[in-house]
């Protein structure tokens, strides 16, 4: 750390380098922190969370009971101990609340005054954050599994919507109408993602094991379909041609720079694809437990030197390095399946929501002193810590001697 700092002072290093090193260090130190809590509002499983990109302050969460909650993540109290307050809630008492499970929530990328939610009640609602009333409601024929707004789109304001219908709907926020459909999948669409690099590029994952990448300007068909065998016909059986997974593909995630695409499937695999060519990079992440029949929301870190993937794996969140596929750690804390996790790029924090109604904040552990400090200082620090909390003390009774 000190080395980085001196190098930075001397102007030897790129400023990004220090930042990367520190954020990587923080990500590696992610832990379930007793100082950080998130209000327990949801009475049911949490399907989706989203942190807004403008300030990085507010977090949306959608529950299986149709409730949507907005949390304030910023800690202004100056104390370590902080509980993320629920700023506002669209609870069951609201007349606008989704009738069934909310599957996806997303902030409008440029303003916190609006957010979009889609639900199994076959609607997608565009909410006004101030009034907590839907400004626009889109009706669909089937359950809505997912939707996505392009985070970088300047030329369009399309929402891609994946429903039980294999056709992908494109809704225009400007006109408030469904302007386009993309045909090509043969089963329900479980996940849709806009590329963070090119505003017209859209990736979609479906239950028919296929992942397609589209250019929405070209309506006739998809750009390409991801193939797990990279077109090697000898390895693929006839029906497995052009499939990304050997099961339902329920998770999609672009890396922060949009160069790579990650997919997860119910075959307990995670795959990393080159988003430009659609080539399988063949990174082996090992077994990534995945039994969800719905969308799995996972995320990739930003601003670390090796990037990390945070993917829900059963009741824990697995952390892999993106390109080597090495399992860094398992964040264990949930008591039931984890459905979603979101990375906070400013503070290198991870929020995860699961079926146990908890949203857990995984916060980097602040080390009491530098890495270079000698060990006796650590002992002192530990002693100080234990003096703070008597629960950490051992309680051996003398009669055991």
């Amino acid at each position, binding site marked *: 750390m000190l080395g980085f700092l001196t190098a930075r002072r001397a102007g030897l290093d790129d400023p990004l380098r220090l930042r990367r090193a520190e954020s990587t260090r923080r990500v590696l130190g992610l832990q379930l922190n007793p100082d950080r809590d998130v209000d327990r509002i949801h009475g049911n499983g949490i399907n989706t969370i989203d942190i807004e990109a403008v300030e990085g302050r507010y977090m949306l969460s959608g529950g299986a009971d149709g409730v949507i909650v907005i949390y304030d993540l910023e800690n202004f109290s100056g104390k370590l101990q902080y509980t993320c307050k629920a700023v506002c809630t669209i609870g069951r008492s609201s007349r606008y609340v989704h009738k069934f499970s909310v599957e996806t929530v997303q902030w409008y990328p440029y303003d916190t005054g609006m957010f979009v939610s889609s639900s199994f009640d076959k609607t997608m609602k565009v909410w006004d954050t101030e009034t907590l009333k839907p400004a626009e409601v889109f009706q669909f024929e089937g359950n809505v599994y997912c939707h996505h707004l392009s985070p970088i789109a300047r030329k369009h304001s399309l929402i891609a919507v994946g429903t039980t219908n294999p056709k992908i709907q494109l809704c225009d926020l400007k006109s408030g109408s469904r302007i386009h459909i993309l045909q090509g999948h043969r089963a329900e669409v479980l996940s849709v993602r806009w590329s963070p690099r090119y505003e017209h590029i859209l990736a979609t994952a479906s239950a028919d094991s296929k992942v397609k990448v589209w250019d929405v300007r070209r309506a006739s068909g998809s750009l390409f379909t991801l193939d797990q065998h990279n077109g090697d016909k000898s390895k693929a059986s006839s029906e497995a041609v052009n499939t990304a997974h050997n099961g339902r593909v329920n998770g999609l995630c672009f890396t922060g720079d949009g160069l790579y695409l990650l997919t997860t499937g119910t075959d307990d695999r995670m795959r990393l694809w080159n988003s430009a060519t659609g080539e399988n990079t063949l990174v082996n992440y090992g077994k990534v437990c995945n039994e969800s029949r719905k969308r799995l929301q996972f995320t990739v870190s930003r601003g670390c030197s090796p990037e990390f993937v945070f993917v829900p794996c059963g009741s824990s969140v697995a952390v892999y390095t993106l390109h080597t596929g090495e399992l860094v750690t398992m964040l264990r804390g949930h*008591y039931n399946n984890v459905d979603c996790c979101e990375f906070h790029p400013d503070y290198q924090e991870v929020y995860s929501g699961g079926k*146990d109604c908890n949203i*857990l904040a995984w916060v980097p552990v602040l080390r009491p002193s530098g890495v270079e400090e000698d060990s006796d200082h650590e002992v002192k620090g530990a002693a100080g810590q234990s003096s703070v909390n008597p629960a950490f003390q051992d309680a051996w009774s003398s009669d055991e001697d």
Partner: protein
Amino acid sequence: MELSQRERLSELVEELTTSGQPQLNQDKMKEVKKLCKVSNDCLDHVYHSVMSQLNQEHAEIRLSAFQIASELFARSHHFRMLLVDNFQEFLELTVETDSEQPLPPPKEVARKLRALAVQTVQSWQSSYGSAYKKLALGYHFLKQVKKVDFQDIEARTVAERTREEERRRRMERIYKEKVETAAKEMEESQQEIEATLTEMESCMRLLFPDFSPIDIQTANSSPSNSQPATKCPSDDEQPCCSKDLRADGRGAKVQEREENTGGMGTTEENRKTWKEKREREKAKKGCEGIEGKDGEKQEMHKSKEAERREVMEVELEEESEQEESSTEEEEADDEDFIRNSGLISHSYSLDLNLSPGLHVKETEDNEPVVSTVIDLHKLITTKHLPAVQGWVQVFTKSGGEEQLLRRALDLKRSLEATLQKHKELHIDYKARVRKVMKVSSDGEDDDDDDFDEVPEKEGYEPHIPEHLRAEYGLDPSPSTSTGSVAEKKPSTKKTAAPPLSSSSYSSMRRLKQLAEEVQDPTSVVATLHLLREKMPPPIESSSSSEPSSSQSSSKQTNVNAPVVPFGLDVFYWGQEQPSAGRIIKSASQHQFWVPAEVEEEVENEELLAESRSRYISFPGSFVPVSHFCRAPLSDGKLCQRQDRFKCPFHGPIIPRDQEGRACRQEDQEREEQEERRKREQQPDWRDAELMRDIEAATGEDLGSDRLGGKKRKGKKKKYPHLSDLKQSTNTSRCRLEKKVFNKSSLRRVAQVMNKADKRKHDKFSNQFNYALN
């Protein structure tokens, strides 16, 4: 950490968890803690071994492992860290959070484990929840998602407490109500009880008054007593010489009374005293006649009085107190006597033997009093005393009601005192067969007694007092038994010819009446008369003792004689049956169809014999078998079966010597033959050893272990203390199922059923109904 420590810890954990005990062995646990205290490495090791034990599919192992974990959890921060880090799995294994991983059997222990785990998690949460985030999360998860009702444990205690409180309040209320009702009841019935008590008191005083002049006056207010008293007002200033006599006379009476109360006094003596008395009275009368001023009238009165006195005397037999009053009368008599005759020397030598206890006997005169006493006694024992006892109970239970309790206790005490007194009186109750007012046919009020003429229950008198027998025309001393048994003898006594010894015309009239009734065929008396005439001679009507004695003797013979069921032979006992054994065939009733000549009467010897004979079977008596089979068994013992003739295993029972060998030659030979035949039946290739060898070579089961008799030892149980999970499958039901549902038996049953069906088909195949199914 040293290897030995590690090994020792593993060993300890295994021992602790496989003990199968609901509680941990404290010594071993202490050792574990002692080892763990040394270093965190030990804790790590213990943690891992505990977790592996928790993963065992046996609730008892898990329970013990959980107990170890909870012990260490309370001690060590490091262990807490380790455990909380893997809290999901821990909860899955102990609280059953994953429905797809239910707790293993046995069920009871699993339930206990779960309850204990829930409780422990809660206590952990309360003490460490703030420090260990995951613990708090787990707690909330259990509480909110798994809906484990942590409150339940507390709530149950709270609910229990409120329930307890409520119960107490309710009990209080009930007690209060009870006390109130009891107090009210007591208020109400106190009067009644007191009235009963006084009544009882006075009744007893009547029966057995105290020695006080007032009592005498109150007790004997009958005119018969007052009469002589008025007659001789100078009662007190008697000459001292007369006191002797009076005392004597009284003594005589006392003795008489004693005899009568004893019930066993000789009647001869009794009669003698009677005669004496009568003589004396006659003499008295004579004197009176000499000195009589009022003449006949006076005499008449006198005789009446004498009669009355007789009655009195008997009546006094029971009440020693009334004796006092009668002495008054007596005094008068004696004074008269002395005055009239001048005879002082009525020198009777009399023995007084007074029985120490008090005895009151019931007679006609005190009957109403006695019956009242009985009623009152019954009332007290059945109603008042239980009620009072109940009140006392209620008051003592509720407490605080000192006043009421004291009152109730007072009541109880007085009631009990009364009962005690009643007991002391030893009232000799008559058997109360009927509750009809008895007609007093004494001469006392005969002239104005109209009821006399209508005797109830015609002629039946259960009790005839001794002294009235003569008047009833009975032998005055038929037997010694003055008890109720003899008195209850049928009223044939009454209809017996009266000896007419008494001069009382009332009895005469009664007799006349009886005679008239005898004439009347509708009356009971007449019927009885008739019956008595018909009676065989040995049953003597005049004496009541004889029939009873004969009865008793017949009873004695009855005991010895066998009881036989009633039959034809008994029915025709000692008679010649004219038509027995004859079968009469009726001739044809037809107009003109006359059958061939038939013998109309057939003599049947068998039938005849049947009506005269009786089969009596003599089964003999059971004699238990005392011998044993004693055939030698394979284990060197002798057969201990006790069959009478034949042992099911060793054949007929034959005499055998000490070693079980047959004593007789032919038996020995027979057994040897048997043995030889058995050996021949089993071919020598079925040698156990040989077969085992063959089996080992071929790998096929030839049944060598069945032959050899040596059983292979079952696998030794690894942990003998744990309850066997497979045991539950070895129930009688399972075994039966195995037998009933095994393939061959099913096939057999199916075959039989099919055969039956087929038979039906074969038989009725030409019938539509059966052909179809």
